[in-house]
């Protein structure tokens, strides 16, 4: 019985081919948007995680408890002593992690007597830092810092903003570890460009050797950043925590990349809400399209419906015949949406969309560059297709019920 009703429903789809195709296209566009936007947001999500770890925070860092409390202000008066930095490097070795000591100085950086711009100047040990962060791989001009370098590594964003080039001297106004005012004239030795806008717009780098001397760090660091050999943080973090106890470094604590990138994680959660809004949007498109199409079908076929019921077709089968018909539109729409979504997604996966002009100075929380790409998400594609068909079937109940609610005699009278 059901087989024959399905066959009848699919034949009914051919009655008004144009109407069926137009409704299917509307559903298809909605589903394509879902696949496409989800692919882009997934890429932004994954890319942000990669960049947060690879350019900004490492997997986790070790710092003093006071520093953790006040980490947004980057205090330099609460540091890890030189001996303890060495211990932490030993801990990193024991846990198969890479580690890099860093101290960040809030500074005003200017060139040629222009107004200064705020940056964080990180004192790093380049040979260690390059094993934790990917800044070295992002050099676009000049060279990466050497351990004994007296120069400064700037971002291409800084280069553009300060109109400065390789070999120029930047004026860095900052405070030393002991809070004394210090002005340094540093030669630009390299320019980097990372996909993480937070790093590009805020961070400059000098060698720790220079900082030891001119910023009175004297081998100390405000943090030691760890990079784990695998993507899993927790086993290594736990090992490091245990070793901190073992080495009697109880004044130190850890901060994970998730804690450091809390702003991004909030955004990521919001993204999930955003996807919900898109799904709701598609639901409305599908619902309006299907309800409208099926209502027209019901009104047009009142007499036939009456005839079928007069022949002894039970109301539930009449209802199913409309539901299957909607499912047909949903399947067609989902196939159109899948194909369109794959085409749109393929474009953004392989070519990307350049938002340079719109996002040059904008920070939307995602740690991604100005060219946005996309990722393949087969799970979402399957979900979108199922969603399209299921919603089509679900909303068709409204007009289909109208068909069986009327008295048979009334439906037979309809002209």
């Amino acid at each position, binding site marked *: 019985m059901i087989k024959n009703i399905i066959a*009848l429903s699919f034949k009914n789809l051919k009655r008004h081919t144009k109407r069926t195709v137009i409704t299917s296209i509307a559903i298809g566009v909605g589903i394509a948007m879902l696949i496409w936007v989800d692919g882009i947001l997934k890429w932004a999500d994954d890319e942000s995680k990669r960049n947060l770890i690879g350019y900004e925070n490492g997997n986790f860092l070790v710092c003093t408890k006071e520093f953790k409390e006040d980490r947004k202000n980057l205090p330099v008066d609460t540091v890890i002593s030189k001996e303890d930095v060495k211990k932490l490097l030993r801990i990193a070795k024991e846990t198969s992690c890479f580690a890099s000591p860093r101290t960040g100085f809030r500074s005003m950086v200017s060139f040629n007597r222009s107004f200064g711009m705020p940056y964080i100047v990180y004192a790093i040990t380049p040979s260690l830092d390059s094993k934790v962060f990917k800044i070295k791989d992002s050099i676009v001009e000049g060279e990466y810092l050497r351990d004994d370098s007296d120069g400064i590594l700037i971002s291409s964003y800084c280069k553009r903003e300060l109109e400065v080039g390789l070999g120029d001297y930047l004026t860095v106004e900052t405070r030393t570890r002991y809070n004394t005012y210090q002005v340094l004239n540093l030669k630009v030795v390299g320019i980097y460009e990372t996909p993480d806008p937070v790093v590009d717009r805020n961070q400059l780098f000098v060698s720790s050797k220079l900082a030891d001397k001119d910023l009175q760090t004297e081998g100390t660091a405000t943090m030691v950043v760890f990079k784990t050999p695998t993507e899993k943080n927790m086993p290594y973090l736990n090992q490091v925590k245990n070793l901190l106890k073992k080495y009697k470094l109880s004044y130190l604590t850890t901060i994970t990349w998730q804690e450091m990138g809390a702003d991004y994680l909030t955004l990521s959660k919001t993204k999930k809400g955003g996807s919900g809004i898109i799904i709701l949007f598609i639901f409305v498109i599908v619902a309006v399209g299907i309800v409208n199409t099926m209502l027209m079908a019901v009104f047009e076929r009142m007499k*036939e419906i009456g*005839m079928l019921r007069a022949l*002894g*077709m039970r*109301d539930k089968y009449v209802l199913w015949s409309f539901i299957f018909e909607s499912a047909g539109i949903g399947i067609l729409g989902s196939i159109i949406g899948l194909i369109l979504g794959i085409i749109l997604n393929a474009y953004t996966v392989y070519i990307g969309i350049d938002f340079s002009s719109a996002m040059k100075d904008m920070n939307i929380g995602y740690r991604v560059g100005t060219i946005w790409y996309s990722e393949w998400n087969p799970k979402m594609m399957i979900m979108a297709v199922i969603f399209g068909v299921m919603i089509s079937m679900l909303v068709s109940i409204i007009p289909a019920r109208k068909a069986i609610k009327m008295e048979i005699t009334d439906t037979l009278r309809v002209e």
Partner: protein
Amino acid sequence: MTIVECRNVSKEYKLGKIIVPALKDINLTVTKGEFTAIVGPSGSGKTTLLNLIGCLDTPTEGEIILNGIIVKNQKKDQLADIRRENIGFVFQTFNLIPVLTAFENIEFVLTLKEYDKKKRQELTLKMLEKVGLKGLENRKPSELSGGQQQRVAIALALIKSPTLVLADEPTANLDSKTGESIMNLMRDLNEKEGVTFIFSTHDEKVMKFARRIIKLHDGKIVDDIKNDQEYNCSVI
């Protein structure tokens, strides 16, 4: 054998606040093999009576007994089952499914009875031949004339071997010649196959085909006569 029995059947319709009586105290018995016409002017209650007998509607008062089943207390699905198993309908506007061919339209009735495919096809082909539509089985309703469509509708009503066929003004949308051939077909099926027909009409030419004529006026039976007029049933 009594097929239909109407006991004190009345039907009223509500038109806003106004109650319109359509049938008043109808008492009627139809036995197997009858070829009965319900006649009367427009608004006399012919269609309402057919709808009540056909379980498409329920009486306001009284009861209808169909094949021994009291229709009054049946649920919607049970009424559908009664219609499927016992009653065939022929409507003046044919009401065929336009996306299905003549063959598929007829066959669909048998799918409702869940016959297997082989049996469905066999019975459908036989029925098409019986109603004179052999060779037209693959045509859709839009590719058939009015008379041919009504033949499909009759086939649709008869394919399930019902105890009763109800035809509401079956010739109203046909020219007189085609109408006559349809009535010949119905009468022939009645005589040869013993199918019980009740049809409504206000056309005097059509009335002549009936063996029993029930006259309705303002919802009441005013006459119930046997039609002794000899009628030559032409060969289909």
